[in-house]
């Protein structure tokens, strides 16, 4: 290795995963450092459950590592990782979809009334009330910072559909949080 591992691009590091174990280990650590927060954020907020999120977070990186091949065309490692995470999470939810009731949400939000990050706690709870198709798109946009085009490619939908879904996801979120947000307006 002629230069420090942090000087390599994502794509170069991806191909280095196929090299000897020492090189692969370094490359993997660097890629993990660069992208783990985004992947975990997606899993954590999409699934809601911490234990499930951890399992699928690990599985994402294991699948990512297994997919490394010199002949694979790799242009966007970040999007590739999120795609793996998304597929795993969506499949997982299809198999075992937990129900979150409005009552659960209200009970939870009452508990959070004194919390310093009250709005954040409400946002997290609201996310769980969103339908999957809105939730995932909201997380990809707000947590993972993906552009509309990137999201469209990832979920294999037209750009306009993405625009509409993002808007509706945000509107839904606002609707759920409306009582709280309105209350905040009064005191500002």
């Amino acid at each position, binding site marked *: 290795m002629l230069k420090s591992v942090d000087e390599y691009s994502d794509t170069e590091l991806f191909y280095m995963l196929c090299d000897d174990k020492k090189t692969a280990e370094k490359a993997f650590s660097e890629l993990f450092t660069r992208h783990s927060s985004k992947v975990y954020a997606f899993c954590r*907020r999409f699934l809601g459950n911490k234990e499930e999120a951890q399992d699928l977070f690990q599985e994402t990186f*294991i699948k990512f590592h297994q997919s490394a091949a010199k002949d694979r065309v790799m242009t966007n490692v970040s999007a590739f990782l999120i795609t793996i995470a998304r597929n795993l999470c969506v499949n997982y939810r299809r198999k075992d979809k937990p129900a979150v009731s409005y009552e659960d949400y209200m009970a939870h939000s009452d508990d959070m009334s004194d919390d310093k990050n009250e709005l954040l706690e409400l946002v997290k709870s609201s996310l769980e009330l969103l339908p999957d198709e809105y939730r995932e798109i909201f997380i990809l946009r707000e947590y993972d910072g993906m552009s509309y085009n990137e999201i469209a490619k990832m979920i294999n939908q037209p750009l306009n559909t993405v625009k509409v879904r993002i808007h509706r996801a945000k509107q839904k979120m606002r609707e759920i949080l409306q009582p709280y947000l309105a209350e905040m307006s009064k005191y500002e």
Partner: protein
Amino acid sequence: MNNYLNNTNSELLTQLLDGELNAMNEESLYAELGKSKELQEELRQQLLIRESIRKDTEAFTPPAAAVTGLFDKLGYATPYSVVSGNTALKTPFWHTMFKRATVSIAVLALLTFGGYNLIGVFNDGDADSAIADSNSIVSESKQSNDAYQQVNEIKNVDEVAAVNNVKQIPTVSSYVVEKASDTKIVATEKTETVISPKTELLATNNSNSNLLATNYADNRALVNPVYASNPNSSALNMNLTMNDGLNNVEFTKSEFTKPSNISAYMKAMPMSSLDNNMPLVGGIRFETSKYFSIAIEGGRQTYSAIVTSDTDDNILINKNMPVNFVVIVGRYDVKQLEFLNVHPYVQIGVGAGNFGKYMYRLNGGIEYPLFESGISLMLGLEESNLIYPTQNKSYKTSNLDVIFGISYKF
């Protein structure tokens, strides 16, 4: 539910906040925002939600257990750098013990060595007093047959043989040996030059290389999710304090890496052990960038022969003379040649000793980090050069040796 865009102001506002609105619609939306209280409220609420997500550190921090579990499953060692401070990885007991023990030994050794040197400095005084001591010993005329024998042998050593023997006392064929003891040889200058394998006559004008210590910052931030660009709030004149998106989600590389760039190290030169005194050097190093470091080094090294003079025309060749020194060091890490976690480096140090006006030391070697403990082993070659005036001439005594050592990054 249809998937058609109606291009309502609300939809355009969402696109604006996500940096996806085209220029054509932007202008009309700004105009609408200026007069619609409802739209302004929606903007404010969307920004509040975004701002709260920005604080969702829990979502952006993979738990340590998940990280170690993943690396275990892949058969990799969990790097220290990927575990954040608030989810600190529990290191194995033996690992911690090893680290603490090694650091304690190194600190103790440094303190002992430093204290010893300090006492040595007070005892030795400056070069003049060292010479005075020499004179007093010489004046006692402690002649030793062995020493004479040794000197006679030296006189007969040819230069090639002498060069190959670093511990040998230099050839003094151009001097007449008057007397000798176990520690000193008194010789009268007969011809004009003495050239020995490790003590050579130099020009009086000594120029030291410039110390390279470029200082440039090298803070590498973790590449965070790139969030959308945001509307030009000043154009809207709406005092939007939260409109910078989420591009500072409080995760930087610096949070994941060991913050310190200060190291302490000790190194020894075993092949130059004379009179059972192994040269030892200790130092503190400060990394100014990824490639460059500066350090201050101190140590004690015994030289095989140092030329001094007494009050007469005689010169004294001091055998196995210890010298305390301090040098400022510039170091370059040759990252281009890194392989298998081995870090090559070269360095140059300039300074002075308690005997000798100038000293410069050239060192090249490798460092090998042990685990992720901050401890590294050092191995290399070091040439030390002591330059000093005697009887209006400059002499240089050099020593080339293998070094080995240990360093600890705090």
